């Protein structure tokens, strides 16, 4: 018992002694779903940009080696032990991280989630890369931009139960009538498998000979559909568009199978996440209706769930693909 007390005192003293050192620079941890994913590496670049812009911020870029909630919980616990000032996390599980993040907030650490959210209890605010209505509108706009006279378009989604994709398609269907002559003839599901998506795209071309565009709001689907369109010799005739990554789509933009596509800019996303975390450390209060500064990206307006959307998805085409294809 005596020993335990001694240990406790020693730890407390050690903690007190290390505190002044922290006051010199703020430490913000950017926790990602897994290390080694291009998208998150790019987000880290944005985070570094924000850190150097603020000046006195040390950025800790970390995450598990595979996309598991368990791995992230370990990482978060070690960040709590290191007494960082803020944690910005892209969660592998909406609920599993809540207890660990609550513990962090009890210790005075500011917690935000970005990209992939955490349940309301586990964070102070959530930064969505974009909003569902903005994405839904963007994917149909991408198709419509190259079809001034309208025409048949089809949707190639991930699995029929994929929440994100279903919401985006629903939002797309709400606004599609604003685009002249755009006729959505089918929605098919490639299950985010390259071979099944390829086959579904082939099927679309066969069953809808008048097809002018395929909208694939999934990075596996858009690549497979573009390949199927190229192989069918219809590059330039059928435009494959939707959400994809520049590094994966570069070849298909070049071949003409895809004229343009969109994705949120991960650099901006990492930048905004770090800026928001810094604003909270500086004393900004997160609450419904609050507007929180995020540097060059403007301000994030929070809704009733303390969530906010960063911006419209960013459009990539032949003019800018080469600047981004090596980044993510």
């Amino acid at each position: 018992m005596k020993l335990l007390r001694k240990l406790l005192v020693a730890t407390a003293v050690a903690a007190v002694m290390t505190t002044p050192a922290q006051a010199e620079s703020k430490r913000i941890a950017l926790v990602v779903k897994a290390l080694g994913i291009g998208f998150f590496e790019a987000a880290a670049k944005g985070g570094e940009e924000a850190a150097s812009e603020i000046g006195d911020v040390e950025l800790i870029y970390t995450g598990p080696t595979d996309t598991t909630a368990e791995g992230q919980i370990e990482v978060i616990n070690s960040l709590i032990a290191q007494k960082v000032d803020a944690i910005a996390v892209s969660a592998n599980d909406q609920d599993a991280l809540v207890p660990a993040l609550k513990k962090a907030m009890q210790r005075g650490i500011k917690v935000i989630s970005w990209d992939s959210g955490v349940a309301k209890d586990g964070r102070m605010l959530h930064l969505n890369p974009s909003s569902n209505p903005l994405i839904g509108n963007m994917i149909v706009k991408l198709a419509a931009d190259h079809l001034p006279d309208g025409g048949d378009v089809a949707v190639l989604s991930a699995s029929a139960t994929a929440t994100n994709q279903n919401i985006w398609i629903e939002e797309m269907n709400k606004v599609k009538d604003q685009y002249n002559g755009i006729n959505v003839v089918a929605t098919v599901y490639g299950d985010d498998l390259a071979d099944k998506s390829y086959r579904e795209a082939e099927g679309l071309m066969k069953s809808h000979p008048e097809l002018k565009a395929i909208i694939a709001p999934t990075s596996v689907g858009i690549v497979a559909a573009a390949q199927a369109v190229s192989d069918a010799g219809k590059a330039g005739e059928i435009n494959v568009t939707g959400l994809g990554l520049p590094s994966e789509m570069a070849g298909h933009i070049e071949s003409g199978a895809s004229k343009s596509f969109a994705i949120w800019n991960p650099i901006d996303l990492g930048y905004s996440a770090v800026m928001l975390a810094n604003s909270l450390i500086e004393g900004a209060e997160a609450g419904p209706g609050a507007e929180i500064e995020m540097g060059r990206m403007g301000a994030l307006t929070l809704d009733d769930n303390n969530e906010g959307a960063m911006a419209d998805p960013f459009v990539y085409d032949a003019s800018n693909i080469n600047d981004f294809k090596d980044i993510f």
Partner: protein
Amino acid sequence: MIQKIITSREMILATAIVILVCCIAYVFPGFIAPANLADAFNDTSPLIILALGQMIVILTRCIDLSVAANLALTGMIVAMINTQFPTLPVPILIVIAILAGTVMGAINGLLTWKLDIPPIVVTLGTMTIYRGLIFLLSEGQWINAHEMSDSFKAFPRHEILHLPVLSWIAIGVTLLFIVMVSRTPLGRSFYAVGGNPGAAVYAGIDVGRTQFMAFTLCGALAGLTGYLWVARYAVAYVDIAGGFELDVVAACVIGGISIAGGIGTVIGTVLGAIFLGVIKNALPVVGISPFAQLAISGAAIIIAVAFNAKSSRQKGRLILKPQELKG
């Protein structure tokens, strides 16, 4: 004789495929256009090649669940080599792919043969190991169309007599297997080992070694398919062909390969693969809900196995009473 041919599994399966194609043509007439049928066959080619490899493994009372992971790892290896050395000719890459696949198959075989671990456990383990290795090799990065050389992507698409090379490879492997399985000692020993391992030993066949050979051959084919797959879909990443091993086993089972070993034909396997391929290619154009698609594929497998069980039960005859009943 004629009756035997008519009632054979292969004939029944072939008839089922024809009926299936007719039904599809009724809903979507374009499906039976020769070009579309050729497309469907080409799309099924990887499944045919893998199913033939799986067939000999199942014949020897084993199972290989690592084929899809082997395919994905080999695909990643050749894709990475191609991005590093774009001038390396495709035939050399194909040889590398087959070698890599063979090594992975041989590892399965050795563990089964020398350590006597049940094959389902061995291949379940190597399946995750191979997938993990892809992650380690690629660090989770994708290899995309623009990073691969044009000749790398063009090979399986090159058309000879209106059929892509991919289809010709499937046909070639099928012919080789017909000869191997019926005309070579190795081919016959697969049946012997699966049919009655005890008797096979008395006939001078090394059961473990035969199983090892089956795994190795299966691995070699998975390696070959790895290159073809990656070149065809022009993308390599950790999850390619995820869950495909189940399609491969399903093709074998539908084709009449007995999971208990020793029974099955090359033609049956090919027809089983084509049956699945027709369903997979037809469902998108017929316009059925994705949930019904899953149910239909599943139902086809169960019906085929039920058929299998029924037809093999008629064959069984009790010649000798089991030993314990005598005394």
